[in-house]
């Protein structure tokens, strides 16, 4: 057996087409990992830069200021979802939805759902991460590697010669397919091993990704072998395999996603943002008592301090900010619930699409799936609530803030996965 493997390995390595395919696989694997690593390091840099900027700004903002309303209005706080060690392999939602918000104590919904300004740049190249490579491109490479193993020998009149010469008969082609698949696997895995070492991946994460890589390769090798055995003619076999790829990798996820999204409608972020802004804008013209009564309903503890006597008071201003959030919040919860439901429903679709299955497994491992995005949003929301609860006593008691008070400002702590 070893003899057979060694011979077929030598033979395969002399094949120019195979050398090209292995080189392409190796390059794509490397490029995909580099794109992921660059994107993540870019995101980490951005956090550091913004943290520094926010700290610098804060010093300027609070300089000589004591009015809590004024300070709260001007102070920005950085909230973000720090990437996991594995995020570079599956950018997932980090490439689609905001993973960072600079928040103020103003109404939150607008700040959360505003996409253009708080959303760090989304890189087109980020689509080409390792997960995309593995789930979408690897099957195509496997197909081009294996569709013609027997077909070529038949076309060139060697099939019978080979089968007659080898004591294994036509089984020698299984060995050939296995050797080629192993070479491809090595080309895909070597860059990953290097990346895993340089990123200090845990053994568990490493083995999980390795398992997914093997799963995808073995699955498509089996598909290729079955199809080429049923359809001896190489071009027809290749077309059938590409059709299968199209079905499992492109059509099933698209149709599944469309079906899931249609059956589970969610409010969109724009509507939520609008609801909040309209409520806030309308509040300027409402009688102040109306706003304050509604606020007191939620925060009875400030009842005694809720009378507004002057034309503008910060507590009134922040009260209607919060009322704007209250108006929009049911829609936000519906959106988050809907996103969760859709994510769960897509799990069924993933059973029919290996590509989707791998994407979900990878983003889950990497902490870049929808659930992690929602965790981060919850975390940012909790921080905003902390901020409000911190400022309300100063605002309602109209107490000037000392440096000491400001030192007590809540700090955003990223939520662990």
């Amino acid at each position, binding site marked *: 057996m070893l003899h057979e493997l060694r011979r077929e390995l030598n033979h395969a390595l002399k094949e120019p087409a195979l050398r090209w395919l292995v080189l392409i696989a190796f390059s794509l694997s490397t490029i995909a990992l580099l794109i992921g690593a660059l994107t993540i390091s870019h995101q980490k840099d951005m956090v550091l830069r913004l943290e520094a900027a926010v700290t610098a700004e804060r010093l300027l903002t609070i300089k000589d200021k004591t009015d809590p309303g004024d300070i709260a209005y001007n102070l920005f706080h950085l909230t973000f979802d720090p990437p996991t060690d594995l995020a570079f392999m599956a950018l997932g939602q980090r490439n689609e939805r905001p993973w960072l918000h600079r928040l103020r104590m103003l109404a939150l919904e607008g700040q959360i759902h505003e996409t253009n300004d708080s959303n760090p740049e989304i890189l087109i190249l980020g689509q080409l991460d390792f997960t995309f490579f593995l789930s979408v491109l690897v099957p195509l490479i496997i197909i081009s590697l294996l569709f013609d193993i027997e077909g070529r020998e038949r076309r*060139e009149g060697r099939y*019978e010669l080979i089968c007659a*010469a080898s004591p294994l008969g036509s089984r020698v082609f299984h060995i050939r397919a296995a050797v080629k698949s192993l070479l491809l696997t090595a080309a895909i895995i070597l860059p990953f091993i290097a990346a895993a070492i340089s990123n200090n991946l845990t053994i568990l994460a490493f083995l999980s990704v390795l398992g997914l890589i093997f799963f995808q390769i073995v699955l498509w090798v089996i598909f290729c072998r079955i199809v080429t055995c049923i359809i001896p003619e190489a071009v027809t076999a290749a077309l059938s395999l590409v059709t299968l790829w199209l079905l499992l990798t492109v059509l099933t996820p698209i149709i599944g996603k469309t079906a899931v999204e249609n059956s589970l409608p969610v409010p969109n972020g724009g509507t939520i943002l609008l609801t909040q802004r309209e409520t806030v804008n309308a509040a300027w013209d409402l009688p102040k008592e109306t706003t304050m009564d509604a606020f007191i309903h939620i925060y009875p503890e400030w009842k005694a301090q809720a009378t507004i006597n002057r034309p503008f008071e910060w507590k009134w201003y922040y009260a209607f900010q919060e009322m704007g959030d209250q108006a929009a919040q049911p829609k936000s919860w519906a959106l988050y619930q809907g996103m969760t439901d859709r994510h769960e429903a897509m799990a069924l679709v993933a059973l029919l699409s290996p590509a989707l299955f791998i994407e979900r497994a990878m983003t889950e491992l990497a902490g870049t799936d929808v659930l992690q995005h929602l965790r981060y949003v919850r975390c940012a929301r909790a921080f905003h609530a902390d901020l409000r609860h911190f400022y309300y006593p100063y605002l309602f008691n109209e107490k000037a803030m000392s440096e000491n008070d400001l030192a007590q400002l809540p700090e955003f702590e990223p939520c662990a996965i």
Partner: protein
Amino acid sequence: MTKSLVTASKLCVERGNRRVLDNISFTINKGDIFALLGGNGAGKSTTLLTFLGFVKPSSGEAIINGIKVEEDIQAARGQIAYLPESANLYAHLSAYENIEYFLSLAQISRSSQEISLSLDDVKLAPKMRIEPLSSYSKGMRQKVAIALAMLRRSPLLLLDEPTSGLDPVAIDEFNTILKALADAGTTIFMVTHDVYGACEIAKRVGLLQQGKMASVFEAVGETKISAEAVHQAFRQSQPS
């Protein structure tokens, strides 16, 4: 006492719902050369493929050295070195690399000296031997395939039009090699369109006509088969 190495017994073969071999029977004795002649599509290659087990007879039997091909294909193939009709060896490999690969496939080891000697036998220019076959002429490639078949040193050589593409001198040389192999005990079953060459070396010549064995000619003693007679039978066997 001569023993028959190859036996076709009432072989019938269907291909694509058509009867391609119709009740064929013949035997080839050990160390004999049997040449199968016939027009295009007569079923010559099919006969060889049946002995290799690639085509299953609908009735009758193909037997090699006592092994019924249908019962143990691998054992039967183990007796055979086969040269296919249009054996394109690997174009990106040299003569040496091709031979090494196919010998290794058959789990046979030959020294590089033996390989060189065999390539000497077929008169392949030494300077070409390390060049890829893509730079060879058709006849040169055929020579490599022949050298490979001989290196197998199998009891039975199945050759499908081995001299197609060879120049007249090379054909003569090839026939001489075959004769020597047969004298040394190798049994040779060849399909050919070269009537004169076949009659020159073969112990027996079979004429296949639309799947039926139309006639068999045999060399008696030192007298060779008459090429004229075979030729005439061939012409008569062709539908006008």
